[in-house]
């Protein structure tokens, strides 16, 4: 089995200094921030600029805006609650620590996603050493090509409550090989471009496209059992 992917080390050399640990102490209320943010809450670039200028509450607004999405991302990649929380926390701490390195060439959220993905992949590799390598070739075995073709009807997701849907989606994405689910996560959930996904993962554009196609077809196949017409909810 190949060594862990090299893409991570380059990224971490750039962004990943230090390894903040989860705080085991009793949670307490946040202290008042010394510089209350005056920034309009829906303007990401203004919030980032204010945070870089020392406005702590602007950064906390960004954290509050993205905490759920980043936690879902790390949960989907690691498939482990404790690792997901650690990776999320470390991602936000690194983002704060290295905010001055963010040059604004992409959205702040895209930058944050890249940090979080790398934190999550490190957790995954630590838990499953020698099993996770994103940059090795994956043979196309044709197993994602549809064998059964069943229609779902117009709005299959409406058959389930939101909580049920979250569990279904989390379950099926967890059944994918990590090298597929991380590509799907970045392209179709975080909506990064193919090029940004390739760069973030140290993969070629054709490799991203190939894995994305297979991930989509596999997920479609896995969702069949929940969404096919006539399936009772």
């Amino acid at each position, binding site marked *: 089995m190949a060594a862990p992917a090299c893409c991570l080390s380059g990224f971490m050399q750039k962004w990943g200094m230090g390894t*903040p640990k989860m705080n085991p102490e009793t949670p307490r209320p946040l202290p008042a921030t010394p510089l209350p943010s005056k920034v309009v809450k829906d303007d990401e670039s203004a919030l980032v600029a204010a945070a870089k200028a020392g406005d702590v509450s602007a950064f906390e607004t960004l954290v509050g805006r993205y905490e759920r999405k980043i936690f879902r991302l790390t949960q989907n990649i690691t498939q482990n609650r404790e690792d997901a929380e650690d990776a999320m926390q470390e991602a936000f701490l690194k983002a*704060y620590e290295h905010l001055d390195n963010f040059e604004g060439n992409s959205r702040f959220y895209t930058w944050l996603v890249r940090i979080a993905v790398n934190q999550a992949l490190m957790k995954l590799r630590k838990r499953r050493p020698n099993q996770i390598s994103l940059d090795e070739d994956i043979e196309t075995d044709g197993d994602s*090509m549809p064998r059964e073709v069943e229609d*779902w009807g117009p709005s299959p997701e409406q058959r389930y409550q939101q909580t049920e849907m979250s569990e279904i989606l989390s379950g099926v994405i967890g059944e994918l090989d990590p090298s597929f689910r991380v590509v799907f996560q970045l392209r*179709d959930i975080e909506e990064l471009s193919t090029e940004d996904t390739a760069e973030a993962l140290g993969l070629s554009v054709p490799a991203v496209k190939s894995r994305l196609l297979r991930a989509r*077809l596999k997920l*479609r196949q896995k969702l069949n059992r929940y969404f096919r017409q006539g399936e009772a909810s």
Partner: protein
Amino acid sequence: MKPKCEKILSELSDYLDQGIDPALRAEIEDHLTKCKDCRVVVDTTQKTIDIFCNSEPAPLPDDARHRLYDALQKKIRSCRA
């Protein structure tokens, strides 16, 4: 699955992402008018993407949020020290 269907499916992602040239798009759309199986696969794959893309993330558990903000406050203090 017929060879033509396999060719169409190999282009499925680019087709759904609007990333193919017009001639190939026309060829795929012509095939889709004739092949119900491919039509269903294209439709359900698009729905798969939409369902994931539109899904709302679950709220962060309270204990995880407390630990996150606690760690953040410590980081802020250490960066300012």
